[in-house]
């Protein structure tokens, strides 16, 4: 299959995720909705079900969810609830609700109340202290709770062997995404910002094994191509999410390639693998403990500004000339982190812009002006 055919397939899935949800249901599969962030999809796969990421929507507007949500909840969370209320996600068999930020914590209860008697909502509280032994134990206890609830939905017991097999699947899936991000930078003439996003976004909707297989095939095709002789600019993106094709098209129109990313929906989600050896539940807890450089995670060495240095290093290594920060409206963690990131970028002499975004935006005139001007600055 040609690169173009693969890219079109990923784009189709990215653009119409709920068609694939219907397809899974027709095939008799059970599907579990997985909200951000760091939910162990391995447990869903081990139960023989399909994990489906829910990252809001670029097409819907908030109406029903207003009944439940404070106005300062981010649109990602509000639109997730909107889709649960308007019937878009009626075919789900369950929902995992992580609670890692101040919006998701109360939101988990909104989901539970709104879906009472309709959809099992599985609560997940990650520990703040994720690295010490007691933190690992807490994570394992939480994951055990999720495992038990998923077993009820699946009607089967998840064995250690099932979980080890699922870890292998997800590691393969993450490795393929990491390789793609690297190849997308080397072949940015073929992998535009819009196409790059579609490939990475499709990962949240496809069965992990099938996605990994398809992406590995695309990666193999990309690896055959000569490296791009790129005359445009390169940037690194940062933020929670930047998957709106209309917004990303502005980068392509201005010949700005995405060399790498520090985005929650993209690279932050597949940096760390789980061990394929030993106790699989401990392997998953350790995987969460090993996550790092994320604004949502507690950093006992925060005074060292390690995360910002990590982002600066990523920019330098990727060959990018600047950073574009997509600031999700009402995202407290990102807003509070910004001064530290700015400090490190300024110290390194790396230009950046901060674009305020939310998923109900339909007009990107101001963003277009800022991105075009940023290209001139670079």
């Amino acid at each position, binding site marked *: 299959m040609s690169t173009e055919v693969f890219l079109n397939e990923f784009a189709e899935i990215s653009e119409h995720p709920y068609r694939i949800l219907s397809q899974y249901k027709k095939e008799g599969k059970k599907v579990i909705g997985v909200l951000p962030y760091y939910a162990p999809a391995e447990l869903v796969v081990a139960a023989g079900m399909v994990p489906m990421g829910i990252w809001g929507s670029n097409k819907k507007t908030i109406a029903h969810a207003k009944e439940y949500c404070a106005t300062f909840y981010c649109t990602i969370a509000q639109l997730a609830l909107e889709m649960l209320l308007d019937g878009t996600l009626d075919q789900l068999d369950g929902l995992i609700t992580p609670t890692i930020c101040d919006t998701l914590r109360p939101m988990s209860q909104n989901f539970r109340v709104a879906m009472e008697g309709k959809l099992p909502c599985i609560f997940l509280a990650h520990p703040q202290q994720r690295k010490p032994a007691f933190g690992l134990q807490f994570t394992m206890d939480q994951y055990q709770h999720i495992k038990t609830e998923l077993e009820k939905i699946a009607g089967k017991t998840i064995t250690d062997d099932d979980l080890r097999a699922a870890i292998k699947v997800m590691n393969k899936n993450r490795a393929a995404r990491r390789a793609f991000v690297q190849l997308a930078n080397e072949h940015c003439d073929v992998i535009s910002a819009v196409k790059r996003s579609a490939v990475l976004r499709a990962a949240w909707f496809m069965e992990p094994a099938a996605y990994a297989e398809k992406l590995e095939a695309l990666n193999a095709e990309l690896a055959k191509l000569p490296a791009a002789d790129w005359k445009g600019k390169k940037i690194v993106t940062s933020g929670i999410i930047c998957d709106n094709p209309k917004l990303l098209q502005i980068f392509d129109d201005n010949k700005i390639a995405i060399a790498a990313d520090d985005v929650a929906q993209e690279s932050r989600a597949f940096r760390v693998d789980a061990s394929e050896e030993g106790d699989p539940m401990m392997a998953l807890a350790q995987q969460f403990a090993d996550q790092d450089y994320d604004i949502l995670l507690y950093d006992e060495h925060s005074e060292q500004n390690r995360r910002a240095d990590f982002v600066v290093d990523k920019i330098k290594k990727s060959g990018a000339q600047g950073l574009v920060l997509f600031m999700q409206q009402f995202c407290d963690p990102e807003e509070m982190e910004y001064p530290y990131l700015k400090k490190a970028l300024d110290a390194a002499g790396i*230009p950046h*812009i901060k674009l305020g975004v939310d998923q109900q*935006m339909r007009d990107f005139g*101001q963003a277009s*002006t*800022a991105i075009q*001007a940023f290209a*001139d*600055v670079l």
Partner: protein
Amino acid sequence: MSIYTLGIDIGSTASKCVMLKDGKEIVAKSLIAVGAGTSGPQRAIAEVLEKAGKTEADMAYTLATGYGRNSLEDIADHQMSELSCHAKGATFLFPDVHTVIDIGGQDVKVLQIDNGVMTNFVMNDKCAAGTGRFLDVMARVLEVKVEDLGTLGSQSTKYVGISSTCTVFAESEVISQLSMETNKCDIINGIHHSVANRVAGLAHRVGVRDQVVMTGGVAQNIGIVNALQEQLGHTIHTSPLTQYNGALGAALFAYQKYLKEQKG
């Protein structure tokens, strides 16, 4: 033979054109008080050509900028962001400029300039507070012409605080002040300080260095300029061409691009 270039700035509230001769001399300019999505751009182009006694064919290079810059593909040879054009225009008018504050119809931009080149910038978020639209709304509520705000505000004798957070809240505050029969001039002065507060906050994010130049239609409002000078502690320079600054920058870039194309 002289080279004529045309810069067209299609803003959200006005369409402006500047025609340059040999990249140095302003031959003609035009301004129509409606912008993107209206007949304004075509009328502004027709007017500037008529004033100069030229046709589109006489233009060696035409460059569009502003919010509606992408709507002129059949006329313009190229389009650029208005930030780059404002930096260019301001440097032409004030060679020692280091900070440009541009308050347009729907956004506020602060540009950092080094050696005539834009090196950093910041724009307002998606909010009308502090923009030309904010002043339009307030003028309507006060039943005065927006162009009279500067003169009226200078007659103020008492400070009246107006919210700098939100256009809707500020409008309610103005209505409330009017119902209490507060002097309109004092309210207008409060509005000017409200805009200055908002813009100064933005300007400090990129840093304010002399010379500070203010461009855009709002720079014609002496009340805002004075309030902003007070807030920033820097002298603010303006030009009679302030509204044409983006179009001027576009015409200058057009000349540069023409020369580059000629070189091959």
